[in-house]
């Protein structure tokens, strides 16, 4: 009997060993598992149901018709999310059985002639939309929005202002305080990041990036690469405000260093150069997030994130500390020492993680949708928050939100 057991144990051990060897056979990539587990490739279909409110087209389609440029700027995620949900199997037409409710408002689509969004009317637009849904459907009042989610990809999320100080002053739009916000902004201990928000990457055009790929055996010969502004002369002439002085510090310390290919010029070979670089700097600008992170991930360049307390997209699904290099803003003068002291096996491991196709897919918003892309990651994030705790359901007549809070300009009808 004992011998039998021993034999079985040995067999299992051998099988397991062989399986593990064959599983790690592919040296090119590594599986990614974050704090929530190995969830990047989860399929949200069947795990949640989303009901999409039918809003009058003045909230969405008419705005898009007025300005189709909204489809290609950094904040286009809100439009594509709406389209994705309308064609996805997670959408349910029966609101009684829905877990989450989505309100399609294109709040960042009011563009200047140069293509930059003006967020001044957005609070009023959101407010009027919520007034509409709370009066036409009973689901908002049931939970005061705790099982509703909104996509607010603007600079400081639901603050609807591009200046950080003003945004902090205003606070999150009071009526959105209980809802889940899907936003690009992420900074820990910042009032602009609600607990329970889902951080997403900014929109970057996937076809453009895919069209500019170079053969993968082109040797990576640039050590550190960065293209962008170091000082914003228009808005911050003396320096020190823009990027909290971090970008200017990078320039002053490393402008004469041959290992650092940094400049403000925008070359036509920007995407190709990123594929020839080992490290790509992703410092903060006026806000801590930027499409540079998405580009670095897609092109296999290890992102060097210089933004204190930043929260990166899908932080519970993607272990960012293992993939990127985090440098504190005060350590910028020692950046070369930090980067060269990383052991080469760690660098190779980071490159293997970056080569994982599910990582690249998770950062993009492709049209048509692909499994494992950013839309699915958002749904996975929403699914992980289920089931809703019983406390979100309010007793009839109970009110928590203050509908008249906020600056008076926001209270005007839209």
């Amino acid at each position, binding site marked *: 009997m004992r011998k039998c057991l021993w034999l079985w144990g040995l067999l299992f051990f051998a099988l397991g060993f062989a399986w593990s060897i064959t599983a790690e056979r592919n*040296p090119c990539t590594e599986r990614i598992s974050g704090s929530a587990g190995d969830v990047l490739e989860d399929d949200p279909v069947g795990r949640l149901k989303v009901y999409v409110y039918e809003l009058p087209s003045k909230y969405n389609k008419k705005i898009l018709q007025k300005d189709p440029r909204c489809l290609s700027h950094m904040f286009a995620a809100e439009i594509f999310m709406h389209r994705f949900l309308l064609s996805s199997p997670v959408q349910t037409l029966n609101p009684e059985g829905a877990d989450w409710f989505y309100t399609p408002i294109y709040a960042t689509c009011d563009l200047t002639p140069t293509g930059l969004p003006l967020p001044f009317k957005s609070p009023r637009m959101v407010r009027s939309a919520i007034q509409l849904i709370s009066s036409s459907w009973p689901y908002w009042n049931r939970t005061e929005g705790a099982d509703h989610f909104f996509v607010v990809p603007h600079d400081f999320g639901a603050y609807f202002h591009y200046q950080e100080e003003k945004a902090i002053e205003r606070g999150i739009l009071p009526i959105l305080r209980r809802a889940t916000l899907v936003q690009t902004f992420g900074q820990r201990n910042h009032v602009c990041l609600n607990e329970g928000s889902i951080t997403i990457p900014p929109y970057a055009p996937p076809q453009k990036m895919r069209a500019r790929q170079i053969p993968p055996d082109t*040797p990576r010969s640039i050590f550190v690469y960065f293209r962008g502004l170091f000082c914003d002369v228009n808005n911050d002439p003396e320096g*020190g*405000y823009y990027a909290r002085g971090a970008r200017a510090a990078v320039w002053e310390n490393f402008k004469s260093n041959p*290992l650092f290919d940094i400049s403000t010029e925008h070359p036509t070979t920007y995407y190709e150069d990123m594929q020839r670089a080992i490290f790509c700097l992703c410092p903060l600008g*006026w806000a801590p997030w930027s499409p540079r992170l998405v580009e670095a991930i897609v092109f296999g360049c290890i992102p060097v994130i210089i933004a204190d307390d930043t929260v990166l997209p899908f932080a519970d699904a993607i272990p960012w500390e293992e993939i990127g290099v985090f440098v504190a803003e005060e350590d910028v003068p020692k950046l070369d020492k930090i980067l060269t002291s990383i052991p080469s096996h760690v660098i190779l491991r980071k490159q293997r993680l970056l080569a994982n196709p599910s990582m690249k897919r998770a950062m993009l918003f492709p049209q048509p949708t692909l499994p494992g892309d950013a839309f699915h990651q958002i749904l996975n994030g929403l699914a992980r928050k289920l089931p809703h705790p019983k406390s979100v359901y309010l007793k009839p007549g109970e009110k928590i939100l203050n509908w008249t809070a906020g*600056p008076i300009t926001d209270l005007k009808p839209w």
Partner: protein
Amino acid sequence: MKLSALQQSYLGRRSNSFRSSGPLDSSSDGAFKSPAAVFWLVLHGLSCLISLLLGFRFSRLVFLLLSTSSTYTSPFHSPTELAKTLDIRSVIPADPVGNVPLPFPNKTATNSRVVVGRHGIRIRPWPHPNPVEVMKAHRIIERVQTEQRLQFGVKDPRKIIVVTPTYVRTFQSLHLTGVMHSLMLVPYDLVWIVVEAGGVSNETASLIAKSGLRIIHVGFSQRMPNSWDERHKLETKMRLRGLRIVREKILDGIVIFADDSNMHSMELFDEIQNAKWFGAVSVGILANSANIDETVVEKRGEEENPRMPVQGPACNVSNMLAGWHTFNTLPFAGKSAVYIDDRATVLPRKLEWSGFVLNSRLLWKDGDKPEWMKDIDTLDGDIESPLDLVKDPSVVEPLGSCGRRVLLWWLRVEARADSKFPPRWIIDPPLEVTVPSKRTPWPDTPPELPSHKKPVIGIQEPIIKHTTKTRTSRSKRRSKRKHDETRTDRRTTGFDKTLQN
């Protein structure tokens, strides 16, 4: 980055923030405006104007002065403004770039250690590259590139066995150094079999020992003859000798024939890894014609398709081997070099050995190899071309995208028959003096050197006439003397120029 630039110019509206927030603020106040609000608006506008003139934000300076004088907090600014003003106090005396390293402000208004507001720009005392870090970075880059090559380059690279026939002559150093350096750059395992006509010599041995490669150096008893025909035949025999070594030592890899005067590209070594049994690549033929006959040029002009100087496999549309390109030797008929030191064009054979590669397993005695390979022990006579090694020439695999890529070049350049060179190119005993150094540049020029005194005396006579002319044209003695000296200098520099010619 376009998008971030977009964002920056978009935030350029910050400068218009007064205007845009103006209507909001005024509308927020509704019908009435408090005198404090009006006062602040006016002050803000005034400081904006002053800032335009001065070039920095004057309003902050004002607030600093006001906040230090009283315990006043502006209604428009949050407590984080105070943190900012603390920074400004130490920054104001510095120049606008702010390259004074500042300590990080610890006081925060929120729980986060990140503060909104103005920060110092940290610069280390010596912001230049550190050589130790640069070396470490280069090692990292090398490691990453090796890994890339492992992942995306050739899978399972095989060892390369290079067979080179050579002999001692003036141009041997030139040719063999070229091949040696090419082989030293090859990223794969390498064995170099050097077969030397006339026996193993110290010349060749000392030359190839510098490479650090694994070398098998054997001698061939015959000496290299003086005519090209004989030389080609002997080289063929030497290559067979090399192949026999591969058989004896049971070397495993890909055999390539690298003649010592050829030039190989690095892509060649990557491409031959694709050869399964017997491959062929295109060879560029550089048949240098020293004296181009006019008739040759005419004939060339008459031809409709100028012949490419390429030898190699030719494929049909379905990328299968259909035939062979060879170098057209007709224009050179009768005018080609016969002896090795002739100045006429050296012509290649119909198919050069260097364009063929074979799997070393074809040469082994036992082991599974295709039946179309002849046993090299049975071949003893003259083999005209490498295709005589196989029974069926259609089995040859065309490499380099079916022969469209030329990966190596064939060249034959040799010195005059009576040329001598120092053994191992070390000059010992010292050469005899041909030109004594005291008499440089050359003994043919006038013996006087262009020193200060002599030429003035020597050359003065011819230019006295010139000086008389200048005396009449210029009355001042000083300028005349200067003029004289400059003239002499010009004369001497003129002499120098002629001397250098």
